[in-house]
């Protein structure tokens, strides 16, 4: 029995721009939004769109991601035929190789996709936060009789040079594609979401692999090659929230967006739930002296201090007299009495000891150009009275009273 469509999530990148957060974790497994991990978004989108066969191509620090995905049950992807599969590179009779690029990651899994004999393949990225019905995009792809459909959205002109930029005619047919152009001719940016007619993609992947000069990348090689060959490529306009969370700033921004009622990212909407593997802890407890303002708090948390505009993951503790402001506390982290965490991302199981200060408000900076979000990596202890400056990347324990900028 053939599947109409198979989804492939590209999750092989190291996520080096998230440095302290991806020391021990693949980027798609980085925590997001109080109880999710980034990969929950494309996975939930797949399930909600009716796609029941998903491959996740991974090669960097895969253990946590493997364990997290498990048999796929939290996403309803434990299926007799199909379901979710984590796909690391493997040894073949002809040799073995790491995934050399995004296209190569799919090329190396041609056999996986072929098993399901799909008509179409949707290629997704493991580091985007958005809600999208891929079913509608597939309808569009079929309606247009396209070989490749690329989801696009309008971005501000000044940011256009950071994206893959499309030029499309009035029918949506793509006439030009430029990867990160210096002088963009359009502000339609590729969202890194592609639907291909599998037969076509298979052909281009095979040709690309045979080209020794290729970087084996979708944006740099496959898309331009298809366009040059005159294949029918169309742009599918997406409206709504979408964010690439590949950097510390964008990850922090996207978390803060959840707290902004004017932003279109709504995880409380029951008609398009985002699923995740849950902690199973009891409800959170807010103490008598706590102050909570504009924040997200989840199961197992204990808050006795002040929490302002922050996202608290499961099992975090904010002690009496502690302040957490405009920050993200990932699972199991503890902020002890009198400690202050501002404009920071605190990773899993970090302990911020008594009186320690992490991060600074932008308005408290003399030189705003030196400001940025402070990051404390997984399992770190920030000693009593220590000070962590803005933009810091803490990957080693900080001793009592020490200052790190």
């Amino acid at each position, binding site marked *: 029995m053939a599947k109409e469509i198979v989804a492939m999530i590209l999750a092989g990148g190291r996520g080096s721009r998230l440095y302290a957060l991806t020391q021990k974790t693949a980027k798609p497994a980085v925590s997001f939004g109080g109880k999710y991990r980034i990969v929950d978004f494309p996975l939930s989108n797949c399930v909600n769109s009716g796609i029941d066969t998903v491959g996740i191509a991974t090669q960097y620090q895969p253990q946590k991601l493997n364990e997290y995905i498990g048999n796929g049950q939290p996403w309803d992807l434990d299926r007799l035929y199909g379901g979710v599969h984590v796909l690391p590179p493997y040894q073949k009779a002809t040799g073995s190789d790491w995934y050399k690029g995004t296209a190569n990651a799919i090329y190396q899994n041609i056999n996986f996709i072929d098993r399901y004999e799909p008509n179409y393949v949707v290629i997704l990225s493991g580091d985007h936060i958005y809600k999208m019905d891929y079913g509608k995009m597939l309808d569009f792809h079929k309606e247009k009789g396209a070989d490749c459909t690329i989801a696009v959205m309008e971005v501000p002109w000044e940011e256009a040079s950071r994206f893959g930029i499309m030029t499309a005619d009035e029918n949506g047919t793509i006439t030009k594609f430029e990867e990160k152009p210096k002088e963009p001719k359009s502000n339609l940016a590729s969202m890194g979401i592609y639907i291909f007619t599998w037969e076509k993609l298979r052909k281009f992947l095979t040709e690309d692999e045979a080209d020794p000069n290729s970087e084996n990348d979708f944006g740099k090689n496959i898309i331009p090659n298809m366009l040059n060959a005159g294949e029918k490529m169309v742009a599918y306009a997406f409206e709504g929230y979408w964010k690439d969370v590949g950097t510390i700033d964008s990850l922090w921004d996207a978390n803060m967006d959840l707290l902004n009622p004017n932003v279109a990212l709504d995880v409380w909407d029951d008609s398009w739930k985002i699923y995740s593997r849950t902690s199973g802890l009891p*409800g959170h407890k807010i103490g008598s002296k706590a102050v909570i303002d*504009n924040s997200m708090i989840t199961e197992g948390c204990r808050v006795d201090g002040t929490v302002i505009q922050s996202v608290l993951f499961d099992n975090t503790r904010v002690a009496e007299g502690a302040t957490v402001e405009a920050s993200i506390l990932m699972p199991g982290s503890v902020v002890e009495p009198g400690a202050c965490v501002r404009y920071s991302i605190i990773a899993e199981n970090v302990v911020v000891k008594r009186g320690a200060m992490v991060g600074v408000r932008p308005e408290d900076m003399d030189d705003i150009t030196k400001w940025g979000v402070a990051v404390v990596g997984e399992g770190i202890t920030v000693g009593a009275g220590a000070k962590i400056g803005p933009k810091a990347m803490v990957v080693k324990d900080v001793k009592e009273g020490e200052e790190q900028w």
Partner: protein
Amino acid sequence: MVNSTSNALGVILPNAGDNLVPELVEKRTMASIPFASRYRMIDFVLSSMVNGGITNVTVIVKKNYHSLMDHLGNGREWDLTRKLGGLNIVPPYAQSTVKMYNGRVEALASILEFLKNQKEKYVVLSEASTAFNYNFKELIAAHVASGADVTMLYERREIPEGCKNDNHTIKLQDGRVVELLTNDYRPGVQNLSMDVYIVERETLITMVQDATSRGLVYFERDILSRNLQLLNVQGLEYKGYTAHITSMKSYFDENMRLLDEANLDQLFPVGKPIYTKVRDDAPTRYAMDAKVKNCMVADGCVIEGEIENCVLFRGVRIRKGAKVKNCVLMQDTVVEPGATLEYVVTDKRVKVTADKNLCGTDTFPVYVAKGQTV
């Protein structure tokens, strides 16, 4: 086989205690009453069994069990989707020749053939009207060590007001039960049975067969108390935290008692999780200007108003300007702008419309039934 599983199977009677809280069980069983912000009563005994290596559990349902079936599903959340054993829900046969069971003996008689075919040496029997987090391996070990015929768990406490007509107390001599009273009403601290028993499976089968042939119905009154000379019945004191649901008042009080973190930590200690059905709610969102003091809140809530001394279940909405104090609000309750609630228990999907004022007292909380709009 490695010793990760216990050599005991579990049997839970989810309808036991239904009579104590008629309002709450109108459309459910005692076992499926929501408790402690995100759980149902059965989650506690079921998780305790699973954590204690009991992975073959039978739930003998009697009536109003749709909510319980929906909650338990195939038992996956408790890791009870097993090829061997697992969760086994037994509804009554809808046959004119089979009458509804009353006592524990009749309930067990209905699964006699099943019991005969099992491999575990022991049977652990429990109800679901008490929330506790217990390592059942202790009970099994104590039973095996003493060589008793039956071992029962008891607590040293006063008899709760709500179950003056539905309790068992015991008198002990060197750990052996020498007297078992039904519906004890003495004041002061007693040895109150928790209605948790362990018996060798073969022994239990014999007991049930004998009792059935003589038309006996009740395990405690008809089998145990009459045969204390013959049977070696041991009492094992349970010293951990318990929450008994014996009346609407106690339901309210036991939820409130968990606002004390010392109690919360005892019922939910690290490393002994209580499992429950997953609802995939987003984290709870506190809006700007929300005020919150001393509350336990599950996921999926949106708090825009004020809450104080409350237990909120999943998906509750407190709109702007609403004030909620000393309340237990079950799943998906909505309190609209300007409404004021004090000492109120709302059941699932209750809606309190704008500017309404509902007020009970600490001794008599107001209860609003499932799905009602005030």
